[in-house]
């Protein structure tokens, strides 16, 4: 029992786990107890063992995984070594990261029934539980829908309902909101809160981006290198170990970062809040004491005078006759701009990106790259100017070694053979991949694959780089590595075009943001202008600006400047 009198539902004793080909264990001796009715958040950098730990809770380790497990895990009184995964499934439900790869059925109702069918429940009992789960999760409107057409957030809801129907005491969620758009993230976070408070379900969640989840967390466990380094309630852990958390590589939510800057200056020393509303309230109440309203030097780079790298004139595109996805886009992209293209799902963002690179030809209108109409250019010529990074790096790697992968890109471009190995070595070095030269691309980690894909694109020094959803499947550390690379390129005069739904990325890196909705450009300007002047409109379109602009907007009546980043906030503190 913990001090609140909650029972222990998961007991972990001296847990060690080593993957088959590894020399060192990934989990190095974990001792833990998880208490009933609590929401426990597990954080840690990539490779710290979060997912592996969760897999020891639902029995995937040891039953479905090869590798050596030492120690014991007792879940709801059952020793996981002595009970198969299916036995444990009625005690502990599991939700995974990829919304697509965990739904088996074609229809929502069948998916929710799936677990119950496997356990042989009677129809009456099934119907009762299914209706209950649908009620709790709020799935009535889409109960009969086909799963493939659902949004990411809806799919995750279905997976949660499907686990819930088995009435487990505990649900573990491994990165449940990582791959979701901001609106879906909020949706799922609220749902999890309801499950905990209204149904008393114990939740154990592993996540990278916990800026919303932290507000509903009872306990936070920090893993690093396969060991528990911090464990306790969120407020204590964060405020007593801030620097250590940063050093480990944990990404601190922005509103907490702001509070940290405030405390660093000697203010709010007794304020231990980690809630967004409290941070906002504190700043509002103390604005004159802590902020230098006049000390504002906000950069707004205007590149509209420079050369045009790509121009779009009345661009229309339809896959099928008269079903237009792009409806008359007009825009000029200048050299040296760092552009973010944002828009709701289905707005045409990806389609637009594909027309830029020549994968799709315009149905009407024209695209010119450095003054040349793309109609007259073949793919090879276009790719001399533009590099394209796909969402999933696995889609664009196909050689047998890292070196071959790099060579392929250069040979196609008919680079002088003598220079090839020099270029390759330089680029690999720049991206920290030199050690992997002879390895097979697919044996690299996700982050390394993305860097390799970037390397193969950047080695020919394209003037323009297009990134399609750079955040998907990336942890923050790898993402910043990639983005900093782009920033360097941009500072040297390259044009970067980034398609994303991550507003924080927009605020941190872009100097121009284009909002596209239903195939039309709705807004086009600097992030500061777009977020500030059109805040409510963006909210309506489910394109919520990130924390710092949000706080700025909510304090606009107090003469608060329109900030984009946490470092700008730091600079205006007294």
């Amino acid at each position, binding site marked *: 029992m913990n001090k609140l009198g909650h029972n222990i539902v998961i007991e972990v004793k001296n847990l060690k786990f080593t993957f088959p080909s590894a020399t060192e264990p990934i989990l190095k001796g974990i001792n833990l107890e998880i208490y009933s009715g609590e929401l426990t958040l597990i954080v840690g950098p990539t490779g710290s063992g979060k997912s592996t730990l969760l897999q020891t809770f639902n029995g995937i380790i040891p039953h479905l995984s090869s590798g050596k497990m030492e120690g014991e895990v007792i879940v709801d009184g059952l020793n996981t070594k002595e009970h198969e995964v*299916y036995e444990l499934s009625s005690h502990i439900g*599991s939700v*995974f990261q*990829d919304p697509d790869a*965990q739904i*088996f059925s074609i229809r929502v109702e069948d998916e929710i029934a*799936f677990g119950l*069918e496997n356990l042989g429940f009677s*129809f009456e009992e099934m119907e009762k539980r299914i209706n209950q789960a649908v009620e709790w999760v709020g799935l009535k409107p889409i109960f009969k829908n086909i799963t493939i057409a659902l949004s990411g957030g809806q799919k995750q809801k279905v997976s949660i309902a499907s686990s819930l129907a088995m009435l487990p005491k505990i649900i573990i969620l491994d990165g449940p909101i990582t791959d979701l758009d901001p609106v879906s993230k909020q949706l799922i976070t609220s749902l999890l809160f309801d499950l905990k408070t209204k149904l008393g379900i114990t939740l154990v969640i592993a996540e990278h981006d916990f800026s919303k989840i932290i507000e509903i967390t009872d306990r936070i466990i920090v893993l690093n290198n396969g060991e528990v380094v911090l464990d306790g309630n969120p407020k204590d852990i964060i405020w007593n170990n801030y620097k250590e958390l940063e050093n480990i590589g944990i990404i601190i939510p922005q509103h907490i970062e702001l509070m940290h800057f405030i405390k660093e200056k000697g203010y709010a020393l007794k304020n231990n809040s980690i809630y967004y509303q409290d941070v906002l309230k504190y700043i509002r109440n103390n604005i004159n004491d802590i902020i230098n309203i006049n000390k504002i030097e906000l950069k707004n780079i205007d590149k509209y005078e420079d050369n045009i790298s790509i121009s779009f004139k009345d661009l229309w595109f339809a896959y099928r006759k008269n079903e237009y996805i792009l409806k008359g886009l007009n825009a000029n992209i200048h050299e040296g701009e760092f552009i973010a293209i944002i828009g709701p799902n289905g707005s045409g963002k990806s389609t637009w990106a594909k027309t830029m690179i020549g994968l799709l030809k315009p149905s009407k209108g024209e695209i010119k790259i450095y003054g040349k109409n793309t109609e007259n250019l073949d793919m090879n010529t276009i*790719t001399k100017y533009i590099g394209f990074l796909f969402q999933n790096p696995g889609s664009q790697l196909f050689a047998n070694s890292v070196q071959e992968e790099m060579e392929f890109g250069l040979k196609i471009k008919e680079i002088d053979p003598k220079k090839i190995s020099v270029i390759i070595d330089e680029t690999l070095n720049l991206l920290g991949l030199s050690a992997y030269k002879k390895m097979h691309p697919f044996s690299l980690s996700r982050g390394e694959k993305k860097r390799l894909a970037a390397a193969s694109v950047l080695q020919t020094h394209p003037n323009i780089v297009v990134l399609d959803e750079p955040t998907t499947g990336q942890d923050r550390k790898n993402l910043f590595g990639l983005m900093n690379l782009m920033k360097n390129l941009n500072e040297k005069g390259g044009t970067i075009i980034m398609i994303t739904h991550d507003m924080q990325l927009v605020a941190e890196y872009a100097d121009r943001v284009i909002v596209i909705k239903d195939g039309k450009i709705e807004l086009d300007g600097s992030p500061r202008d777009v977020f500030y002047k059109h805040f409510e409109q963006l909210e309506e379109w489910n394109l919520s600006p990130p924390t710092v602009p949000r706080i700025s907007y909510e304090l606009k009546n107090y003469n608060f400047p329109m900030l984009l980043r946490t470092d700008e906030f730091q600079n205006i503190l007294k």
Partner: protein
Amino acid sequence: MHLITARQEMSEFLANLEQDTPFHRLDPRVKMLYLFVLTIVNIFYLDSKFLLIILFSTIPFWIIARIKIRSILPQLTGIALFLLSLMIFIYSFSGSVLFSGSEYSGTEGLSIKIGPLIMNFSAANLGLVQLLRMSIPMLTSLLIFSTTDPAMFARGLDKLKIPFEISFMFLGALKLLPLILEESRNITDAQRIRGVNTRGPINRIRATGMLLFPLIINTLSKSRQLGMAVECKAFGSGKHRSFYRELKIRKGDYIMLIWIFTFATVMLYIRFVLGMGWGRMM
């Protein structure tokens, strides 16, 4: 060159399931029986006239089921390409591998020389016959798949005492197919951008080879994830499995059964009692 996204294509195909027509409402076992009977009757005929009659007898069901041709265009194209290449390459040139030496071989009658290959008309006719024989079950399967909810299908198979593991394989494949399709399109796009030449058959084949490895890895990864997810929902418990969906034989099913029985009787009568439909096909 893809026409629309893979996901959209799948959604359109699955939209056929949403319709509610008398054909949709048929018990999946009845539909499977219909397919079975058609296939058997098919086998007994070698005369294109009768095969065409069998083919045309299925058309009313397509109409009743209100299938939108556009939504099944990719599948139809695939079937058409497969059958055409079969007809051209196996049966029409210089005699067929299976039938050489028999009176059905393609070495009699009119021939045209196309370069080093000889295209023979009686062989071509044989090819047409085989094409029809194969298209009938293939097209009817397509009709059934686009009008039957996979969950109902699984229930039907279970009632026929087929172990769930087999239905599971079909359902799993159905589930993964759109994901595989989408991924292969992404990979081909990436190839084009990387400068891979896809013009011409040799380059196409090479490009497909390059596509296979990342595609397989990706598919295996997704199947593994799916596998873990279903195990976490007690799949493979060994317990007797129950089903959420129920099946009921209704009036429409009886009507269909009568049709199937009548059709089978008539066609078999024509074939075995009247002795028609197996003769030479010139």
